[in-house]
């Protein structure tokens, strides 16, 4: 796989991706409104010596895309040094093969930073590990507090419809409550990723 200027420019800008969404646009835009930009991250990206080219792999059905792409979208709009182009995962298998999660999973979003000569500086996949860990812990706490939900490892189809609906509501509430942390962690990880690979 290669990325060069010609291919890069075939990717969708953030607003074009939103316009082309066949679903979840309202959720994505709601998440966009809820992003609080981190001052240190904004300062860092604004101070880059040269703008960066940012390749994103995404699909509009993916929950992690709906949650995390708006963070990048807002950040790019604010700092002016990130030229973001979005490619559909399922139409760009060569790109996906390059950035497989743990070498085997087609996790998205992928956010890859390139310098002006299209040398990769680093890439970021899916969501911060700290967010997965926090939500796994909160999930265990929910199950511990509600014995009627059964085991956290048991298939949910065995739950009665009303119990399953309550579990879903609890999980949704937990995700809402951890969103601010998640958005901050995405910004921190993107900043640290680029900071670790100084622009050449």
């Amino acid at each position: 796989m290669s990325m060069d200027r010609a291919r890069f420019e075939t990717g969708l800008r953030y607003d074009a991706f939103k316009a082309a969404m066949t679903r979840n646009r309202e959720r994505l835009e709601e998440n966009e409104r809820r992003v609080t930009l981190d001052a240190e991250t904004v300062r860092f990206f604004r101070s880059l010596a040269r703008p960066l080219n940012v390749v994103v792999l995404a699909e509009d059905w993916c929950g992690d895309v709906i949650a995390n792409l708006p963070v990048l979208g807002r950040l790019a709009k604010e700092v002016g040094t990130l030229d973001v182009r979005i490619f559909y995962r399922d139409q760009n298998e060569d790109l996906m093969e390059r950035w497989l999660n743990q070498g085997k999973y087609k996790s998205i979003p992928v956010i890859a930073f390139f310098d002006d000569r299209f040398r990769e500086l680093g890439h970021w996949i899916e969501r911060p590990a700290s967010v997965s860990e926090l939500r796994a812990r909160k999930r265990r706490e929910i199950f511990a507090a509600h014995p009627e939900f059964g085991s956290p490892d048991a298939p949910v189809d065995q739950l009665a419809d009303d119990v399953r609906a309550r579990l879903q509501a609890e999980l949704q509430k937990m995700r809402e409550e951890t969103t601010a942390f998640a958005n901050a962690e995405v910004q921190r990880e993107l900043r640290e990723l680029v900071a670790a690979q100084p622009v050449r």
Partner: protein
Amino acid sequence: MSPVKIKITYCAECGYEPQTLDLAKALMYEFGGQLSSIELIPWEGGTFDVRVADKLVHSMTRDGGFPEPKAVADAVRSALAGV
């Protein structure tokens, strides 16, 4: 031979609807009135579980990936035969 109930729990936020519908359709065409119901349960967290009668015949978490339709069909035939 009593009708068999099938449940497919799929991750809606992962976009597993096509695989869910493909499997449901294949089972409907193959078994028709031998099934009492096919229940589709939208869920999250990368789930794709298939239960035939009371037996969990496929779990993405446990088995990885999506099930082979033939394996699910075999499980339905076994359930219909009372095996």
